[in-house]
């Protein structure tokens, strides 16, 4: 139990900052550039942790809480999510509800921290973040229900356990749709193109980046680290649904998982390279489409 916990946290803390590096490298290759090294994000975090802080005079303790919760939530949530075929350290009946509300906690704290600065730009980002979540959450619930119905369990580690492979034999069509929907949820929740552009410096088009305009130094490092971990935790669900194999050897399984995560990051990089950001008012329509798609996958299962 303790070793599993340590292994899980080790993978989380060590692997998470690699993913933004892989995405960046992919985008650079598509753009014909050499790009920053894979480990750039580790260097960035190290640099930011060593810096001082500039804090707005308008802010209160809420402003400092946002980044902290933003890091704490993915750490706790990761304990419920299996990494590949490595089972999660914790698993309870109905823990998927808890995990979804954990991410709501981080959204609450990040958005209020943004509004705490009193800046119109950050208010804009906060409003967008909380509004789009209204449409992402039903899609996430529907997708998870498909998996729950296939595996007959409501705890994430069992839902994404060995029962999933049998599910692929019986209901492959539903699972493919679920995979698409979950991938869209990962893109929305992690503020990637086509929903949000993590690189742009036009504040009017951003969501997540505009919320953290006033954070600096160690606080900004916490935010970046938390965001990378969130990508890892939510991405782990997608990777597990896509590759539900169990090789029986822990080292091999871990290797498959890490390769899967890198593959996911490359896929995100490819999408960011070949797609433009959606017009802001199109995003809700796109998300409603995703909800319908996930519901359709359920109907196929119920029939």
């Amino acid at each position: 139990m303790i070793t599993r916990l340590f292994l899980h946290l080790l993978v989380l803390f060590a692997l998470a900052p690699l993913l933004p590096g892989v995405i960046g490298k992919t985008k650079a290759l598509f753009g014909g550039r050499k790009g920053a090294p894979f480990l750039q994000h580790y260097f960035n975090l190290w640099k930011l942790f060593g810096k001082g802080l500039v804090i707005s005079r308008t802010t209160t303790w809420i402003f400092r809480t946002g980044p902290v919760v933003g890091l704490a939530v993915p750490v706790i949530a990761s304990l419920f999510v299996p990494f590949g075929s490595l089972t999660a350290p914790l698993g309870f009946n109905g823990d998927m509800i808890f995990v979804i509300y954990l991410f709501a906690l981080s959204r609450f704290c990040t958005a209020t921290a943004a509004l705490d600065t009193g800046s119109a730009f950050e208010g804009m980002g906060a409003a967008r973040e909380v509004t789009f979540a209204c449409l992402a959450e039903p899609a996430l619930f529907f997708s998870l229900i498909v998996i729950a119905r296939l595996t007959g369990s409501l705890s994430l580690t069992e839902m994404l356990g060995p029962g999933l492979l049998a599910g692929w034999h019986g209901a492959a069509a539903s699972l493919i749709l679920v995979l698409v929907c979950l991938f869209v949820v990962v893109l929305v929740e992690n503020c990637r193109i086509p929903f949000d552009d993590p690189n742009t410096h036009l504040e009017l088009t951003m969501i997540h980046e505009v919320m953290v305009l006033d954070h600096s130094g160690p606080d900004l490092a916490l935010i970046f680290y938390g965001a990378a971990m969130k990508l890892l935790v939510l991405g782990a669900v997608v990777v597990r649904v896509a590759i539900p194999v169990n090789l029986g050897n822990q080292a091999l399984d871990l290797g498959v998982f890490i390769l899967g995560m890198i593959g996911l990051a490359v896929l995100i990089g490819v999408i960011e390279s070949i797609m433009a950001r959606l017009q802001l008012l199109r995003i809700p329509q796109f998300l409603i489409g995703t909800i319908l798609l996930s519901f359709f996958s359920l109907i196929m299962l119920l029939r």
Partner: protein
Amino acid sequence: MLSLLIGAVAAPVLGRWPRRSALAGFGLAVLGSLAGLCAAALVLLTGQTIAFSLPLTLPGASFAILVDPLAAFFLAPLFLISLLGAIYGSGYLAKADGPATGRHCFFYNLLVLSMALVVCAANAILFLFAWECMSLTSFFLVISDHQEAPVRRAGFTYILATHLGAAALFALFLLAGAKTGSLDFAAFNGLHDLPPLFAGILFLLALGGFGSKAGLFPFHVWLPEAHPAAPSHVSALMSAVMVKTAIYALLRILSFLPPAPAWWGGLMLVLGVAGGLFGIGMAATQKDLKRSLAYSTVENVGLIFMALGFWLYAQATHHYFTAALALAGALLHIWNHCLFKSLLFMGAGSLLHGAGTRDLNEMGGLLRRMPRTGLLLIAGAMAVTALPPFNGLVGEWFIYRGLLEGGIKFQGLAAALPIVLVGLMAMIGAMVLVVMVRIVGIGLSGEPRHQGAAAAHEANGRMVGSMAVIALLCLAGGLMPALLINPVVAVAGTISPGASDLLQNSGCLPYWIGGMGIGVVLLILLIFVGSRLLASRQKAAAPTWGCGFLFPTARMSYSAEGFSELAHRSFYCDCLRPRVSGGQPVALLPGRVVFAHDAGDFFLQAVYLPLFRTAGGFCSRMRGLQSGLLQIYLFYIFGAMTLLLGWLALD
């Protein structure tokens, strides 16, 4: 109860001495509530029933009292909130003059007394008497500030809506009494083998009558009018407790009726989920903080009705475990909502007290000026959003778990219903987050946008203290969910036999949520301390970065309407969208532009007000009866006596 009654009488008598009047009125309310709380806790813990009956001279009536675990389950939060509300109220009205305090205490004590009597009554006449008393006393509390026209209008809407509901209740009890031959609740058990049609009529009457008091969609119109108008601790009491007495009464009536067919549950859950979506949608567009909270009550009541409806539906289709989960979820949410909604209303009251406004747009920067109130209000906002580590999650977990159980276990397309409900509930939950982030972010943080907010002062000790107690209870419920789950599981067994065994033997009760909540809190503290140590080296204070604007002012920050604009533009239907006028600058050198944003209630405007107007027009024709001449009234009394004598002679 005696103490409450004495308090009610003593307060206005002592009206000439404000301090003594407040002390007597609120002090006796505290004492009475404390005694009631102890009695309710005793019944809940031991599972015993207190029952006694005194004959009354009125025909059909008796002073029959029955406190079983179901009643005690509703009495416990009732007395708790009345107790804290009285303490809060004594701080809130500290500057009021003697007669006003006396009047207020008189109605407050009577309201608590009548609500308790509604829950305890075991006779239809006594119940209706207490029910009317509750409506009238709360009406007088709503119009405490009757010098203001909007308050009078709100009170009028309230009394009309509540009496429409009461009319259905009179019909319900008279029909039931005619069928069983007695108006005692004990005899109502004879209704168990009614024909389906008659039982259905009784159910619809109960749903309409009690639903209008509970704020069930589409009978909710009085809530957003009355709650902002009332003093805040009264809003807390009405929103947290009074609407629950109606849910109690509905559960009581359901226990008399034959086993519910599936359509009863279906109707309740459709109205419930519609109310949830409508309530939270409207809450997101209100700029009045207390109106927004009132709509959030409509949403929460909707969720409770949805869970209760799903309970009946699942029971009718023989999915007993699913039904038990939904019932436990509804009961938990009833308790949780009592706690966090009273906390939020009291917090809104403190903001009103400190900053002098209920308009979110005129607030801002209040967390710096009212740090303790702000902290407690944020705790309430997190609890209502069902975020860990607070109590709201425990209740919502049960409701979700019940729906998911249905979604997994129901065969074929029958599973689509709970699955759709899960999706809608997730959407409601995410909208609650929008509403609460808006209240915290626009109201409490940023820079003050008005002089009132800039000069705001912290609330006094009694107000902060009673809020702190509720906030601690919310936290305790989240960190030690056994405190909530165990009594609820026991009470679920008395409502639906077998439910508590099913729940206890399932091994899936979420006691672990408490441990996880503690984990979340510890980890947050750890990272907080860690990052503080790291950041202690260099820290500089600067103004918020204006993205290139050199002189940003508070007027440029996000407003309450702006925050929810994206939401209502993206997914509201036209009739719910606020009506916006002006705001477009015209011509090359635009002058002053006025922007108006009106988020009125569609149902009140389009359905109820025309109805009220028609009824008013009809009633004004009967004005001739009220001539104001004493002789005429004496004649009426004489006529009524003659008719009564004639009736007796015929009997």
